[in-house]
């Protein structure tokens, strides 16, 4: 009986000059079968889309300089550049409104309201040091249209499905984009141990082998 197997794929450092689907074809096509899912790291997808900027390229506004002061130090928006990047992506009034609401919500003991209201990019931005060299000196946004990227991977590779995932070593996994018919929660669970490894391992692609077969077998078993 087929079993799930996670197969990380090592690549060169991918840059904005690369296309993520072409890179998957270059490095992993021979290992990908019709029952497999291809998952890619969201930061690398974003970098190949040119969704990165340097602090030197941003001019932080007064609002960014003030609002970043109210973000805990570990957060990516705790520098005025991270905050400015969020403002550029989501709009200053949206981020400002989210900050006010988040502050009020905190008073009554509710966390996470700021990130719920400030928009997708506010939650996905990685500040400097968040990505491996040479992008350690960059602010990296979340990927653009991750569902579309996943669909393109599936269609060009002929695999069972594809996903764009944000996984770290702290046992946090989120699937940001997914091809149709897949369960993001299930994939997040499969990827929870961060098979992408740490940044220096340069494995932005993970093939989830035999996913289709395993799911079919599980469904057949459930149906008796």
């Amino acid at each position, binding site marked *: 009986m087929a079993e799930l197997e996670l197969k990380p794929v090592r690549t060169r450092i991918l840059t904005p000059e690369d296309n993520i689907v072409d890179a998957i074809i270059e490095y992993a096509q021979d290992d990908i079968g019709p029952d497999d899912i291809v998952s890619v790291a969201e930061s690398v997808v974003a970098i190949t889309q040119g969704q990165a900027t340097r602090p*030197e390229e941003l001019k932080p506004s007064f609002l960014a300089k*003030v609002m970043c002061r109210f973000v805990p130090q570990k957060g990516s928006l*705790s*520098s*005025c550049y991270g905050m400015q990047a969020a403002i550029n992506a989501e709009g200053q009034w949206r981020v400002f409104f989210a900050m006010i609401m988040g502050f009020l919500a905190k008073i009554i003991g509710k966390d996470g309201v700021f990130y719920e209201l400030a928009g997708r990019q506010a939650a996905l931005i990685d500040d*400097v*040091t968040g990505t491996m060299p*040479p992008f*350690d*000196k960059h602010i990296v946004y979340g990927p653009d249209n991750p569902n579309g990227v996943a669909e393109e991977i599936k269609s060009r590779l002929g695999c069972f499905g594809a996903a764009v995932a944000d996984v770290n070593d702290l046992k946090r996994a989120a699937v940001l984009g997914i091809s149709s018919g897949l369960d993001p929660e299930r994939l997040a669970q499969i990827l929870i141990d961060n098979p992408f490894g740490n940044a220096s391992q340069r494995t932005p692609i993970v093939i989830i082998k035999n996913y289709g077969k395993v799911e079919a077998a599980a469904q057949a078993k459930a149906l008796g």
Partner: protein
Amino acid sequence: MEFLFGLIVLVVVVVLSVWIYIVRQGDAEFEFLVDQRTEFTLVDMTENTATFSCKVPFVNKGTQDGTIMDAYTRHLLPYEQYDGVEVNSRLELETAPRTDGYFEALIVPKTTGQAVIVTVKLTAKNGNIREALGQMVDMPIDIVYQIVARSEWYITKNRLVMKSQEIAKAAGLKRAV
């Protein structure tokens, strides 16, 4: 009128409170402790080259975490002062050594620090490093670093001096008088 006055008072109170909060919060404050560096020691020596290194601690003595975005050495040996050697210098984090001269951006929590290893390679222009070291002069080396924290990024530097007598001693040479 009373409502307007109340509104103005409220705005002033909020602005003042935010300002006091920010001032009290402070920011990161970095320093490379060049006066606490170790002596230069000889790492490698050939017929025409000598390589020395020393350890320089640094600290974030501020009240907020901060990031060293970049750090590098800038040696200052104009030919008008001494033309006997070519100089190459670099630094690397003590806990993450690498020889490519690239400094990976590093978050330094408040009131903590680490150390960098400064490496200086001298190449004798006449092919005889022992002779060249005998005439070498004191050489300033700036540690230049870029910081980003709560406030806008900035570049600053701290200077150490590589003493000619120090490296002559490390290389086991007697200085020419």
